[in-house]
């Protein structure tokens, strides 16, 4: 298997030049931007809303210890079993253990990026369980045996025709380009799964400490069915999902919908606070909540980048990121793509192996500008670059910057450099773009900048002589 950096470079180069992909993604995200702006307008003051949300998350994360304990105690008081998983493998073992203990055969699962993060499905399939994704987009990428393309829109890279072909090949359905008909095909296949599943797995959008409830946001009702029909329900969530108060949802639910999908509010917002109680007529008989650390506490220990734990996984930073829009989600080669992924993946999976994601940014700051919880995303990319260079500098790059520092700090040196550049310039065109060209990375697709006979400093000197 290739290293993360070489895989990224190869895939990015291919995708960046793929005009069909570019057209598809740019068009979809331009539409998103239009509806998002309409919905932002429905807020009395969107900027103030962002500020409030950032402050709430700041408080939530900076008191994570007490919030998590409060959350767990409230849940346990209503009969929920709360599990604490330090690592991905612990979380997989806990969930696999519950399923084994229940002697379950099939599992129905609603959308959960945390489950992608710990590679839950392959682990459960290895244990012999069938896991079916119930979110339409997730179901489509599961049938294609690929990872979600985007945190919120898992199948946004596919056209109706491609989905039709996929359903035709995998489910034997007739060809159709109608989104309604395609949805009905998936719905028919999925209904059967809900009824027969022994276990339902969900993620969570928020964990309310005050009431010990998880909040799940969805547009299809599939999470409700995944939670309500099977006898056992499991929710897997990262520890950063905490919000202190129930009333915080009054801001966070419309904010998540607006930033994430340009919706006023997502179609279904459900709270789960425990298994079926004695006086209740429905709900699962058993409820398990798995709280995942998986190196989030290391991020918590970093005061400079701790705000990355504010993330509500709305995907807004991916949507506006010109890198994401040109290379697509799969190119990142890891669960969380886009700017937030480039910031947190080095913390979750190792800085030296994943620093290329922080380098692969023009640092334009569109992500930071759009983030509803005001994570200082593009500056954290700079911080990751600094930490990576400090930890394991590239000998060549450091030498180059040392020589450069001498060159620009010594006027004679700089003047000489310009004269050499001017002399070499006419010859550059002979090997421009070839493998002998030291500026090939530039000249392969772009012409060199001009090199006039007199520099500004030379002009200034001559003028003031």
């Amino acid at each position, binding site marked *: 298997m290739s290293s993360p950096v070489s895989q990224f*470079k190869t895939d*990015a180069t291919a995708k*960046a*030049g793929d005009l069909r992909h*570019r057209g598809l993604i*740019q068009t979809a995200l*331009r539409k998103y931007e239009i509806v998002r702006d309409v919905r932002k307008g429905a807020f009395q003051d969107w900027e103030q809303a962002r500020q409030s949300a950032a402050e709430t998350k700041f408080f939530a994360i900076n008191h994570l210890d007490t919030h998590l304990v409060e959350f767990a105690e409230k849940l346990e008081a209503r009969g929920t079993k709360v599990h604490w998983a330090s690592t991905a493998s612990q979380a997989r073992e806990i969930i696999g253990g519950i399923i084994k203990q229940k002697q379950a055969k099939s599992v129905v699962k609603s959308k959960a990026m945390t489950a992608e993060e710990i590679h839950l499905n392959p682990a459960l399939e290895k244990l012999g369980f069938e896991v079916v994704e119930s979110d339409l987009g997730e179901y489509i990428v599961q049938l294609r045996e690929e990872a979600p393309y985007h945190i919120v829109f898992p199948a946004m890279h596919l056209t109706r025709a491609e989905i039709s072909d996929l359903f035709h090949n995998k489910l034997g359905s007739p060809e159709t380009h109608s989104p309604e008909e395609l949805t009905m095909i998936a719905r028919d296949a999925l209904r059967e799964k809900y009824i027969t599943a022994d276990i339902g797995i969900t993620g969570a959008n928020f964990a309310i400490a005050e009431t010990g409830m998880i909040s799940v946001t969805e547009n299809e009702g599939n999470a409700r069915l995944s939670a309500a029909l099977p006898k056992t329900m499991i929710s897997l969530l990262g520890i950063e999902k905490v919000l202190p108060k129930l009333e915080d949802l009054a801001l966070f639910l419309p904010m998540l919908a607006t930033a994430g999908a340009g919706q006023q509010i997502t179609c279904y917002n459900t709270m789960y606070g425990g298994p079926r109680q004695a006086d209740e007529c429905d709900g699962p008989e058993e409820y398990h909540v798995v709280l995942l650390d998986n190196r989030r506490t290391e991020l918590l220990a970093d005061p400079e980048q701790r705000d990355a734990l504010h993330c509500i996984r709305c995907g807004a930073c991916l949507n506006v990121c*010109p*890198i994401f*829009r*040109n*290379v697509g989600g799969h190119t990142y080669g890891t669960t969380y793509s886009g700017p937030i992924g480039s910031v947190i993946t080095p913390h979750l999976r190792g800085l030296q192996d994943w620093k290329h994601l922080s*380098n*692969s*940014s*023009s*640092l*334009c*700051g*569109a992500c*930071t*500008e759009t983030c509803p919880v005001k994570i200082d995303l593009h500056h954290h990319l*700079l911080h990751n*670059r*600094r*930490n*990576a*260079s*400090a930890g394991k*500098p590239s000998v060549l*790059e*450091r030498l180059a*910057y*040392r020589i*450069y*520092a001498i060159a*620009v*700090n010594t*006027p004679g040196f*700089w003047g000489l450099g*310009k004269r050499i*550049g001017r002399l070499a310039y006419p010859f550059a065109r002979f090997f421009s773009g070839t493998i002998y060209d030291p500026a090939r*990375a*530039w000249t*392969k*697709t*772009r*012409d060199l*900048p*001009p*090199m*006039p006979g*007199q*520099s*500004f*400093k*030379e*002009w*200034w*000197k001559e003028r003031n002589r």
Partner: protein
Amino acid sequence: MKVTLFVPCFMDACYPKVGISIVEILERLGHEIECPEEVVCCGQPAFNSGYWEESRVICRKVLKQLERAEAVVIPSGSCGAMLKVFYPELFKGEPEEAAANDLAARTWEFSDFLVKRLGVTDLGAKFEGKATFHDGCHGLRELKTKDSPRRLLEKVEGLELVEMEAAETCCGFGGTFSAKFPMISTAMGEVKCSSANETGADWMVSNDSSCLMHLQGLLDRQGNPLKTIHLAEVLAQR
């Protein structure tokens, strides 16, 4: 006022006309200009690549050279952001922290200096053509320089200013990013140029020559007739 002009390294070598235009404009407004010989680069390439210690070697010299400047003007949102936003971060906890904060407060991006510091928008410039403005990201998001260039361009006689949809979208230059990830950089440049082309503009104007260096290189290679020009060069024409 005595204005210290900081013409960044690549503009000194490749785009001397930008600096010359600024000298003309500011002298016409009655200001005295100085251009310290020893100030060449703002130190951003090393800083953005994560080599902060190597960057400090350059930045310390800049701090020293500009210690007494009344107002430092930089014709680049990106290098301007380096001095105004990133020097204070780079020298946080260092002996030069106060000097960095002090320089940041005295430093101006060129269009902001004209509009916000001098209160000038009409420079009596004449420039025939249809133009669209490209917001360099550092100017736009680090310095919040959105209005100043437009207010100046609106006063240029003969110039029709049209907005492109992707005005605020990064052009893909990004310093060393353009060489480390050339294909992504190129794709981003293509998106930018096609948005500019959609407006029917003859010119893409910006306050950042670094973006324009990348975009013009791409336009020339692709035979696209759209031309790029720095804001100062437009404003100096009469």
